[in-house]
């Protein structure tokens, strides 16, 4: 492909009818469909967060009733976890980029890919149905026996929704695994793959191995509610902790489903904007797999005060500390990549910096929760909330926004406004820290999570947090505006606006043609070969 500035026939112009979008098997279009759907769910989940943050401005529960408050945080959790974060980077950007990055025409199973989107939408509709008819008040964790016996809300409907949505991520994960194994371009060996691909491979493993266990746990809750049998209900001989084991077997690794793809994004961005190969490439690649594998050994650290056996607690705590190592390896290697680089401060790089800093804090505070004697105190307090928002918002969403800004020119062929995008990145960073840092303090002071009303001594930190949340909310709205604007008025991007390495930048146009490449590229060099020396590392 000779450097065409905005080719006439690309994947966007291949058809304009609604039907051409709804029946597409083009991974790029499916990626865009996912991007639109998850943006919708992000706004729904965000709105809920705004409402309960406002409620928490004052100690008594005065803005919304306790019942509504409980439904709001449940909505926020379920929508953000299952309908936004889990599909965010993998289903939107992974779908778009995995074939492009490995030099393939499409994913291995294009129809399954389309099916995955439909299944996702169906699951999302069930969830919305449950929310609109009255909501669910169990928290996203669905702990039994509250969820299975006591809650009078639409738990079964929501369970069906999550069960269905689970299949969509299984389909995506399965597709990625097979695609990465079988469809790499000639010459593209495993250790030449971009780290984004490594991260998605590891993510897919977790999806494929973990999701079915969540499906079973949710299914059993549903069966218990519908037929009155008692698998988790202690009143009929069941053990509620079994549910927690099955739930966290998936839901702890699910944290890595959310963070690993963003780690992959950060690797791409850091390499591009320092014009250097990622330092310790192989260590970073293997660290992704290590996180995926270790991630399955640690779920019991969510259960240190659940009356789980003390000895199981010891085992899970011990294993939990092992996950710290590959995460630390990644952070150190990204930082080392900057050393003697040529560092540019384009918007994606700002998000990558934000990611590294905030993920470091999120990861380190995770150690507090893995430490047995300390977790007893901070478990189920705002400390936990702060910790996982540093991982999921400070980490995963920063990575998601980084990806959005990095590959937007590739997806749309247009550039957005630099000034506005940098401004909003800054706003988001400030707003985020103001929202969640006070919550660490709140947690250690002993404010439990999921509290509709709280003791007046906690108010100062809650006010700070709510103030931060309003800044953060504004920060999230700005990109929607300038990105939409760029679709119509943005400058044409050209195939490679950042001067980045990688097949998606060097071997195809922006936006790419329907079949991605004029001819399947042959790869002869390492990933991120910015110096042109093809050095092993």
């Amino acid at each position, binding site marked *: 492909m000779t450097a065409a500035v905005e080719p006439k026939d690309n994947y966007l112009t291949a058809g304009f009818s609604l039907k051409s979008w709804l029946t597409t098997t083009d991974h790029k279009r499916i990626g865009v469909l996912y991007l639109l759907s998850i943006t919708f769910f992000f706004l729904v989940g965000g709105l809920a967060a705004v409402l309960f943050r406002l409620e928490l401005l004052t100690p008594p529960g005065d803005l919304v009733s306790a019942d509504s408050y409980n439904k709001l945080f449940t909505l926020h959790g379920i929508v953000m976890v299952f309908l936004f974060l889990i599909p965010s980077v993998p289903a939107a950007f992974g779908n778009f980029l995995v074939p492009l990055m490995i030099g393939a025409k499409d994913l291995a199973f294009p129809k399954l890919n389309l099916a995955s989107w439909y299944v996702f939408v169906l699951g999302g509709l069930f969830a919305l149905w449950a929310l609109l008819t009255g909501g669910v008040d169990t928290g996203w964790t669905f702990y039994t026996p509250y969820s299975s016996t006591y809650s009078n809300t639409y738990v079964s409907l929501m369970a069906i929704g999550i069960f269905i949505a689970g299949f969509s991520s299984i389909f995506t994960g399965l597709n990625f695994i097979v695609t990465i*194994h079988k469809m790499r371009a000639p010459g593209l060996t495993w250790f030449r793959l971009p780290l984004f691909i490594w991260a998605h491979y590891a993510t897919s493993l977790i999806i494929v*191995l973990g999701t079915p*266990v969540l499906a079973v746990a949710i299914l059993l809750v549903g069966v218990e509610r519908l037929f009155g049998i008692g698998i988790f209900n202690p009143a009929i001989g069941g*053990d509620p*902790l*079994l549910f927690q*084991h*099955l739930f966290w*077997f998936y839901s702890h690794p699910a944290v890595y489903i959310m963070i690993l793809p963003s780690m992959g994004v950060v690797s791409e961005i850091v390499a591009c904007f320092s014009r250097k190969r990622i330092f310790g490439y192989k260590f970073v690649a293997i660290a992704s797999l290590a996180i995926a594998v270790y991630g*399955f*050994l640690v*779920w*019991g650290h969510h*259960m240190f005060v659940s009356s*789980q*056996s*003390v*000895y*199981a607690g010891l*085992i*899970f705590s011990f294993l939990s500390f092992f996950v710290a190592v590959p995460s630390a390896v990644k952070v150190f290697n990204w930082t080392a990549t900057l050393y003697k680089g040529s560092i540019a401060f384009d918007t994606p790089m700002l998000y990558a910096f934000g990611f590294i800093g905030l993920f470091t804090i999120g990861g380190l505070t995770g150690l507090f929760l893995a430490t047995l004697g300390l977790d007893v105190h901070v478990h189920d307090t705002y400390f936990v909330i702060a910790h996982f928002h540093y991982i999921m918002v400070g980490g995963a969403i920063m990575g998601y926004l980084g990806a959005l800004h990095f590959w937007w020119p590739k997806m749309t062929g247009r550039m957005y406004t630099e000034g506005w995008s940098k401004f909003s990145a800054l706003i988001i960073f400030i707003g985020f820290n103001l929202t969640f840092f006070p919550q660490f303090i709140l947690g250690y002071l002993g404010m439990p999570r999921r509290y509709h009303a709280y003791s007046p001594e906690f108010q100062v930190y809650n006010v700070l947090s709510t103030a931060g949340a309003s800044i953060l909310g504004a920060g999230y709205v700005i990109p929607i505006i300038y990105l939409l604007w760029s679709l119509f008025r943005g400058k044409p991007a050209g195939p490679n606006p950042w001067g980045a390495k990688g097949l998606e930048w060097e071997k195809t146009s922006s936006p790419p043609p329907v079949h991605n490449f004029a001819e399947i590229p042959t790869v002869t060099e390492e990933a991120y070969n910015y110096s042109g020396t093809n050095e092993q590392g």
Partner: protein
Amino acid sequence: MSSAAITKKTYVAVYAALMILVLVTVGVAYLDLGLLNVVAAMTIAFFKAILVALYFMHVRTSSRLVWVVAGAGVYWLVILLALTMSDFLTRAWITIPTF
């Protein structure tokens, strides 16, 4: 993933072995072996599963990747079972002070 090496004769032999193992597992269940009953039943079942996987499912003649996938299934199943049971089986270990 070629299955050229597995003949119909092999299938029949495997089938015969499986049927014999069914009878063995039923027979063993009538003996009182204490905890060994579970062990025996699971060992036989595992052996049968291996036979089905290796021959009927062609793992024996498949690429290394298929071995890895099948192995991963077993490995993660063991993690799920072992770490969950590490809770339920050790709960009674901690002793209260006996005054």
